[in-house]
């Protein structure tokens, strides 16, 4: 039934929209076929109007006037409705990743448009993609990047990103050239440089696609950060190689010096993007320091500066993705300390919203764009490309991991390697890059092949990765609730190891972190964070909020702890506050329990340190909607249930091995004026119910596991 509802929704959306397009006469394709009309800028001649001869026009339709924004809005509306429908459609999300469904919707829409207009539908223009659609996604990913985990694994990530990409590019390019040589008859005019160019764009793993598929799977965070980090950082290598080969194509001849210069360019591009991002991040942090009197526009600065950093680095032909990630990572802690709670929430929500919309649009356009006028097909080329992509990636991962495991302590297991290799999805970046190639006879073939590869990786690999993971039993994040003892002792051990390393004078895993923290505390924080926000630590603020809430809500509940009652079992809110104290106060160096990135859920860790996220407290689905805080005894049950509701909305993907209910902090930070707890809880629960509709469905597979919790 839900399926029917979905289908009807989608169909109506699909039909309504092309009907609008059909109203406009088909656009004249600008210039050649190689630059398909960019989104939303079709020209059309005039609008319809109802003519009353000689009199005033009482009613007229002037579509032309609003055409551009109208079409853009319609596209976005279509994307969002499709996304809604997806979440409502029963068991489908469990099997088919969202990206696949969106591409299918796109195919449908594209087919309809093609049928109506008998010409190619608007495709994703490279400019629109790189300038408007990609930045929000990368910004979102960068802002919510688990910093410590990322930096701990940075060496490995760089290893995969740089060397792995190089390996793939050269491997695929050269092998394809071999194939072309073998199939001289049909592919004879594809030169080596063309093959290398193609290799460079097809080898890149796409962060958008990877994220959207990994959302569905719960793999341990280390694996997640490896794949994700690699997909982010290989942008530098990819872009440089692409541009390099492109410029080589234009040069009459290529010398060794050019190759060497190309190598230097990779470094320059990567580091340059990084520094641009750092610069803008620091400026943004500084600006946010002064926003106390105009709090409403504080979120705007975050977006503006990030986007500026992206545009600046694109302007300088540096890596925009690295810039925006660096900017987000840099400014995050200072901005969070400086701006108000509501601004923080706004920032996070907007980021999520924009990145969701962007991602949806990208996939839909991928679908639409596959309906092209002219496809050039060549069995050997396409099949060999597919095969080579898989093979080279697999061998690359195997070799690189063999080397890197010697240097790491947390080895990358074979199963992890399989996931890394198999999870290398290609996406819209390849697609856009292939359109940007200068025209040459076989360009159509490249486009077709790229589309096939993207569709194959997203559909086949995307859909099968989850069953395969389950088959291989990838080491999932542990779900047991950590005991307080564990936390205390672990922290003690962390301190101990830091001390030992100081004694030994060895620059262990703590050294750079410590150095940075000191520098951070002494200089950066004092400079970049508002005066009155520096003194109080975040934990104290939250803790006071919690206490206030407790005391206000229920007079009978003990204030916090009666030190004399030793043997009383602790109430959950006390437990939460204890956990919070521990997790924030104790300096944690090796914090591997940060939540992994999630596109669709907003983790309300609007404080400096990351708290652990709830995994799940599985109560039945109905509970979320049937709580009543007043009737039960004490705030205990009500708040527990609300916490359950809140925690469910957070559980979808990214959970830490140490679940940690921090919805009390969510409540205290929620965008609500703290009046009475029941009212607040009411307000928060539906609010959180909204963003993730699919959370309840997702829980199904995890109910059993959580039941085992002590």
């Amino acid at each position, binding site marked *: 039934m839900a399926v029917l509802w979905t289908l009807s929704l989608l169909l109506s959306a699909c039909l309504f929209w092309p009907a609008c397009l059909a109203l406009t006469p088909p656009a004249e394709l600008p210039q050649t076929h190689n630059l398909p009309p960019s989104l939303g800028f079709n020209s059309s001649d005039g609008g319809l109007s109802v003519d009353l001869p000689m009199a005033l026009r009482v009613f007229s339709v002037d579509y032309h006037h609003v055409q551009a924004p109208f079409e853009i809005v319609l596209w976005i509306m279509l994307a969002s409705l499709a996304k809604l429908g997806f979440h409502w459609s029963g068991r489908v999300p469990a099997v088919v990743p969202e990206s696949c469904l969106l591409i299918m919707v796109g195919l449908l829409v594209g087919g309809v448009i093609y049928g109506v207009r008998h010409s190619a539908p608007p495709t994703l223009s490279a400019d629109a993609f790189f300038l408007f659609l990609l930045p929000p996604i990368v910004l979102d990913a960068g802002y919510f990047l688990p910093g410590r985990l990322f930096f701990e694994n940075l060496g490995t990530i760089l290893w995969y990103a740089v060397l792995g990409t190089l390996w793939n590019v050269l491997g695929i390019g050269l092998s394809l050239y071999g194939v072309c040589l073998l199939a001289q008859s049909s592919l004879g005019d594809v030169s080596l440089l063309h093959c290398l160019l193609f290799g460079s764009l097809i080898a890149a793993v796409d962060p958008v696609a990877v994220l959207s598929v990994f959302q569905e799977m719960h793999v341990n965070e280390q694996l997640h950060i490896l794949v994700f980090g690699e997909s982010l950082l290989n942008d530098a290598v990819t872009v440089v190689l692409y541009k390099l080969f492109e410029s080589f194509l234009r040069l009459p001849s290529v010398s060794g010096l050019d190759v060497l210069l190309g190598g230097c360019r990779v470094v320059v591009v990567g580091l340059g993007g990084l520094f641009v991002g750092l610069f803008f991040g620091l400026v943004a942090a500084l600006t946010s320091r002064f926003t106390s009197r105009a709090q409403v526009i504080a979120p705007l600065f975050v977006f503006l500066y990030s986007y500026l950093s992206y545009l600046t680095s694109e302007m300088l032909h540096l890596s925009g993705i690295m810039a925006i990630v660096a900017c987000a990572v840099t400014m995050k802690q200072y901005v969070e300390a400086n701006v108000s709670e509501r601004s923080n929430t706004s920032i996070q929500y907007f980021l999520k919203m924009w990145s969701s919309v962007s991602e949806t649009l990208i996939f839909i356009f991928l679908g639409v764009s596959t309906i092209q006028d002219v496809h050039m097909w060549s069995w050997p080329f396409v099949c060999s490309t597919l095969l080579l992509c898989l093979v080279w990636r697999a061998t690359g991962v195997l070799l690189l991991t063999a080397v890197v495991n010697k240097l790491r*302590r947390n080895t990358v297991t074979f199963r992890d390697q399989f996931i890394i290799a198999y999870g290398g999805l290609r996406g819209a970046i390849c697609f856009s890059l292939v359109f940007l190639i200068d025209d040459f006879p076989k360009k159509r073939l490249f486009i077709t092949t790229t589309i096939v590869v993207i569709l194959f990786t997203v559909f086949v690999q995307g859909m099968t990765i989850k069953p395969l993971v389950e088959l291989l039993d990838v080491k999932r994040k542990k779900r047991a609730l950590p*005991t307080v003892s564990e936390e205390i*002792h672990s922290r003690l051990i962390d*301190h*101990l190891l830091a001390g030992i390393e100081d004694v*030994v004078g060895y620059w262990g895993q703590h050294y750079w972190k410590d150095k940075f923290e000191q520098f951070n505390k002494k200089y950066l924080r004092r400079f970049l964070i508002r005066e009155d926000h520096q003194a109080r630590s975040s934990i104290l603020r939250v803790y006071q909020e919690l206490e206030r809430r407790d005391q206000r809500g229920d007079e009978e509940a003990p204030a916090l702890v009666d030190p004399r009652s030793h043997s009383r079992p*602790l109430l959950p809110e006390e437990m939460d506050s204890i956990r919070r104290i521990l997790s924030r106060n104790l300096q944690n160096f090796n914090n591997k329990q940060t939540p992994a990135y999630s596109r669709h859920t907003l983790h309300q860790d609007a404080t400096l340190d990351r708290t652990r996220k709830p995994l799940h407290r599985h109560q039945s689905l109905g509970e979320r909607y049937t709580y009543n805080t007043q009737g039960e005894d004490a705030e205990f049950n009500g708040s527990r249930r609300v916490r359950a509701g809140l925690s469910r909305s957070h559980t979808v993907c990214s959970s830490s091995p140490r679940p940690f209910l921090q919805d009390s902090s969510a409540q205290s930070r929620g965008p609500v004026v703290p009046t009475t707890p029941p009212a607040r809880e009411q307000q928060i629960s539906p609010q959180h119910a909204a963003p993730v509709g699919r959370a309840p469905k997702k829980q199904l597979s995890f109910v059993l596991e959580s039941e085992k919790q002590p």
Partner: protein
Amino acid sequence: MGSSSSSINHIPDAEKLMQETGFSAAHIFRLYERFEVLDRDGTGQLRPEDFGAVRELAMNPIGDRIIRAFFSPGQETVDFAAFVRILAHFRPTVTNWTRDGAQTEPANSRTRKLKFAFQLYDQDRDGKISREELLEVLRMMLGLQVTEEQLQSIAERAIQEADLDRDDAISFDEFRKSLEKVNIDHKMSTRFLS
């Protein structure tokens, strides 16, 4: 790292230490260098003040305890052999150099590592972490941010969870049990050569 035994000839008992602790010659050499740096008055013995000179250690919440852990009870100084033996606890377990006829449990086994951590709590060496000992450590780690009541409740909770025989203290076995899910080998190891 071939035979650098020539360079460690002047280190007392180097071979014996290597055998006992599993450190390689290069490790021993490096540790000896570090020992000499710490031992500012060149007596061949370290005193608590020498450790105190390590600035970062002074800022460590449990720095005092770590320093004290180097000294056996009643001893005022630490010589190189003892220094190395303590540090041997922190070798990664995967890189055990082959030794012949190791009778005793290697210093970096999981149990020995845990024992070392346990002794950071258990200052009076009675084999149990009492509530007060736990509170002391918590106070050191949590500092001034937390009230006494909160500390009490945390300690209470910790003991509740771990204390299986209900004697209101945590024995070593209970300690070990409460940490069974933690990867001690990884957490309590550090590479000794850069």
